[in-house]
């Protein structure tokens, strides 16, 4: 075989080898490498999802434990912000406070207002509901103020929003012996509007 033929064949083989190599690279190696890269990216993403799930599960466990350990405090939280309107309890509380403050409660009415969402940045916000309670009180200024102080201390949260005090003269019958006389007595009447809350 002549030297030039050898050279030509060598060049041909080298070219052929390079061509095959390029073909194998483009057809098999590069797609396999790309596939590997995609898989690695997907693994990283899924791992993040898994880590997030583990973190959330831990948070659920922590909150559940906290929730379970609250005991008496949980009861207080539920009393402050119950899951139902529990109007009977509100009525009972107002009546009880009125008795202990020595004022008379009249004309109680309840009205549910629109739902309110907390303005914090918390996710999955569930709104709470407001119940407007209106009533009037009869009693002197000191006792009326005492009533309000007690309302503010009540575990079921109640916020007085409006108040209107008016003094008027009422007539009472006084009897001395056989004679009965009418006496004018100054009475303080206070119309109160308060809000109480629940989270359904």
């Amino acid at each position, binding site marked *: 075989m002549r030297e030039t033929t050898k050279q030509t064949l060598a060049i041909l083989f080298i070219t052929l080898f390079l061509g095959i190599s390029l073909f194998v690279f483009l057809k098999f190696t590069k797609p396999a490498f790309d596939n590997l890269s995609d898989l690695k990216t997907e*693994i990283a993403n899924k791992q993040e999802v898994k880590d997030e799930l583990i973190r959330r599960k831990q948070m659920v466990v922590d909150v*559940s434990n906290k929730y379970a350990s609250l005991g008496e405090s949980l009861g207080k*939280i539920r009393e402050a912000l119950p899951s139902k309107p529990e109007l009977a309890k509100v009525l009972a509380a107002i009546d009880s406070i009125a008795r202990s403050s020595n004022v008379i409660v009249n004309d109680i009415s309840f009205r549910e207002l629109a739902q309110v969402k907390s303005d914090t940045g918390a996710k*999955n916000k569930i709104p709470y509901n407001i119940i407007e309670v209106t009533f009037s009180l009869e009693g002197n200024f000191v006792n*009326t103020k005492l009533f309000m102080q007690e309302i503010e201390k009540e575990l079921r949260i109640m916020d007085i*929003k409006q108040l209107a005090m008016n*003094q008027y003269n009422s007539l009472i019958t006084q009897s001395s012996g056989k004679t009965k006389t009418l006496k004018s007595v100054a009475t303080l009447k206070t119309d109160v509007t308060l809000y109480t809350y629940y989270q359904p």
Partner: protein
Amino acid sequence: MVASLVVVKVLASNASNTLVKIEKDIEIKKAEFTSNESEEVVNFQNELTNLKTIMRDHISFSNALNNISLNTHQQVKFTSLKINYEDKLIEINGVAPSNEVVAQASNIFSNLENVKQVNFKNIKAFSDGMHFVMTLNVLESFFK
């Protein structure tokens, strides 16, 4: 070239197995979340958030009454009082022996830090003294 292809294929196969394993783990972790448990936690978190908001805005109306009674001029008698928390407005109807006392009563409230403005209207002389309507524009702190 072939060797590198084999290596890449082996690595891809391993990665694929790892991915399947992670996906299985995710399914298991998801199954661990019972809807009740998650709902209970979300509800509780919301309850606490709402309670925090309500407590932050909790009003002590008796403090407003205290502020008014402590700063009432001795010679002034109030006949009616209206307090509106939303508008931060207080309207007082009263009787004073003279205009000078009305002015003094106004000064007392004007000097309070949590009173923005004191206004008067309908000042009229009657047999029992000067009848007046005083309105106070107050700050939030007047109720706290």
